[in-house]
């Protein structure tokens, strides 16, 4: 269960989040929509602990723990995963090595046994197959020379392996064609369980045809201004975000 209470944050002198209130119960997927500059990406970075974002008020509690006090790696160990809008390239770092290092770091933190290379490869190959990805994805350097779609699929692959309790998807649909979009959506849907929840940040209703959210929230000018069921996304698609700030 993620509970965000009156969360405010800024970058430098610029106030971005101005009192966000949001609850995401376990087992649910919530969509966050909103116009450009509303603070959607900031919310995802604040929740995952990126430097440069100063929390000025409020709290974010995940499974009873105040996550805002934790390092990014401790949040990962607690089960939080951020799928990046712009996945980062790591030249010279093999994807398999990266994935296994990350998986073992998280497993270690959770008190689980680390996986050796053989066990890891078996697990990774299964995950790749489920995502219709080629095995050579493991041999390539992390995100280096990947197409936009490959980068996003690589994010979903990491998510599938790390098995987070809470996934935050930051505009994972941007730049994806319809086939890639379906694969990404299937990756998220495959994780659905009573102990998994997700915050799906998106600009467009399109992704929500494939990942059907339990709740939809509209973030505008740093606040949640409306919440509703999946039908709210359709309404926004039809009418746009104009006038929502005043609501």
């Amino acid at each position, binding site marked *: 269960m993620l509970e965000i209470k009156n969360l405010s944050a800024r970058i430098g002198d610029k106030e971005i989040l101005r009192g966000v209130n949001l609850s995401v119960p376990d087992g649910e997927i919530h969509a966050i929509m909103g116009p450009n500059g509303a603070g959607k990406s900031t919310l995802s970075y604040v929740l995952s602990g990126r430097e440069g974002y100063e929390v000025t008020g409020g709290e974010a509690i995940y499974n009873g723990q105040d996550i805002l006090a934790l390092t990014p790696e401790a949040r990962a160990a607690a089960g939080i995963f951020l799928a990046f809008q712009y996945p980062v390239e790591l030249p*010279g770092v093999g994807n398999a090595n990266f994935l296994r290092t990350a998986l073992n*770091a998280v497993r270690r933190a959770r008190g689980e046994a680390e996986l050796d290379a053989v066990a890891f490869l078996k697990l990774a190959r299964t995950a790749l197959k489920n995502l219709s990805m080629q095995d050579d994805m493991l041999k390539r350097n992390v995100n280096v020379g990947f197409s936009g779609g490959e980068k996003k699929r690589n994010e979903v692959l990491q998510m599938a392996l*790390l098995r987070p309790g809470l996934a935050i998807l930051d505009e994972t649909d941007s730049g994806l064609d319809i086939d890639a979009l379906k694969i990404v959506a299937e990756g998220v849907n495959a994780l659905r369980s009573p102990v998994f929840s997700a915050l799906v940040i998106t600009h467009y209703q399109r992704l929500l045809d494939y990942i059907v959210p339990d709740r939809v929230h509209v973030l505008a000018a740093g606040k949640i201004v409306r919440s509703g069921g999946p039908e709210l996304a359709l309404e926004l698609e039809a009418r746009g975000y104009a006038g929502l700030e005043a609501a």
Partner: protein
Amino acid sequence: MSTTVETRDTVEALSVEKYKYGFTTEIAMEEFPKGLNEEIVRLISAKKGEPDWLLAWRLKAFALWQKLEEPHWARVEHPPIAYDELYYYAAPAAPTPKSLDEVNPALLNMYEKLGIPLNERAALAGVAVDAVFDSVSVATTFRETLAKSGVIFCPISEAVREHPELVHKYLGSVVPYGDNYFAALNSAVFSDGSFVYIPKGVRCPMELSTYFRINARNTGQFERTLIIAEEGASVSYLEGCTAPMRDENQLHAAVVELVAMDEAKIKYSTVQNWYPGDADGKGGIYNFVTKRGACRGRNSKISWTQVETGSAITWKYPSCILQGDGSVGEFYSVAMTHNHQQADTGTKMIHIGKNTTSTIISKGISAGHSNNTYRGLVKIMPNASGARNYTQCDSLLIGDQCGAHTVPYIESRNASAKVEHEATTSKIAEDQLFYCRSRGLSEEDAVGLIVNGFCKDVLKELPMEFAVEAQKLLAVSLEGSVG
């Protein structure tokens, strides 16, 4: 963020302990009086039972050294070295051992701590090891196996006695005694080192390895390594270096000479982890080394791979003289500096023969308050038609107090030569660190991963078992560098 500061402080508190090779071994030592004069040179030569020609050579080197000036063109700074306060010979006070059973158990115990497979039964890795402790070579493993294929691998002091014609022919033929200040010093006082001879057509059946260890206080280490590969021969050789933690600086001035005849191949790898000094720059080894290989035969190849993480100051330029037509020189280097370390390192590729090629891949990583300089020379002589060189120098900066410098010299006297130089300087990006950490990696592990990725082109040139060691070393050497 406060968490970062906390991580850094914790790691800095730990970093005093991080040089795990910093122990000393209590053992009775035989030392000559400190200071350097002709008498000491004669004593060293007599101790080794050397022939007259070698003593004469040492004395010429010593006479020249007294006239030479310490070089100061490198981008390093240090207080004057008190050459008269150093001991030039220190050895465990016992007769030279004939087999491993006769080696002092305290020494064997020390090499075990260092993880060196000195005991043959432990040497499953198939690595033959020569171990040099302060000034003398302590034991050489696998000698019988090697002897069957005609390979000679022994302390150079022994080679002087057993194979004088080979030593006489090649010693100083690549690095003359008057080559430079430190080479002259080494020629006068070198006390041991390794000797390798691979006869015609023989592929050395195993990796050869030497571990150098400075133990005694105030002792300089001046080892001399000579490797000869006859026509069609090949060998892969690795050296590793460690020293105890001491507050004063210690001098290490080695000379390495390689000779490759027609179609011969020599691969020389170094993992240098001398004590780098403490976080404030106190103590550490001055590593002033001359390494040079001569590709004398056609289509011969000499490849240098070095991972330099230790030493307070590193001053070394493993070089290739590409004399034989079609010969190949390679230099793959990772030089990492942290805290107050200084490195001025690179290579010289001298193209003399036709269609000679050289490749230089240099990766410099600077952290803390350190300074890291790549200095290289590519020289194409008039007859070297069709010569080619490719140079790539990449620098990675961690933090904003360190420096990276690239000083490439290119001299081409042949119009048909192709010389390429590429250089980049970058910082570890905040988004790369955050990406890794958001996947559960600690900040230190993230830096280690990114740095190892940066060095991959060089690390893949190392023999497999040492590549793993080098990766760990890079990560350990960077502890406390972020934040």
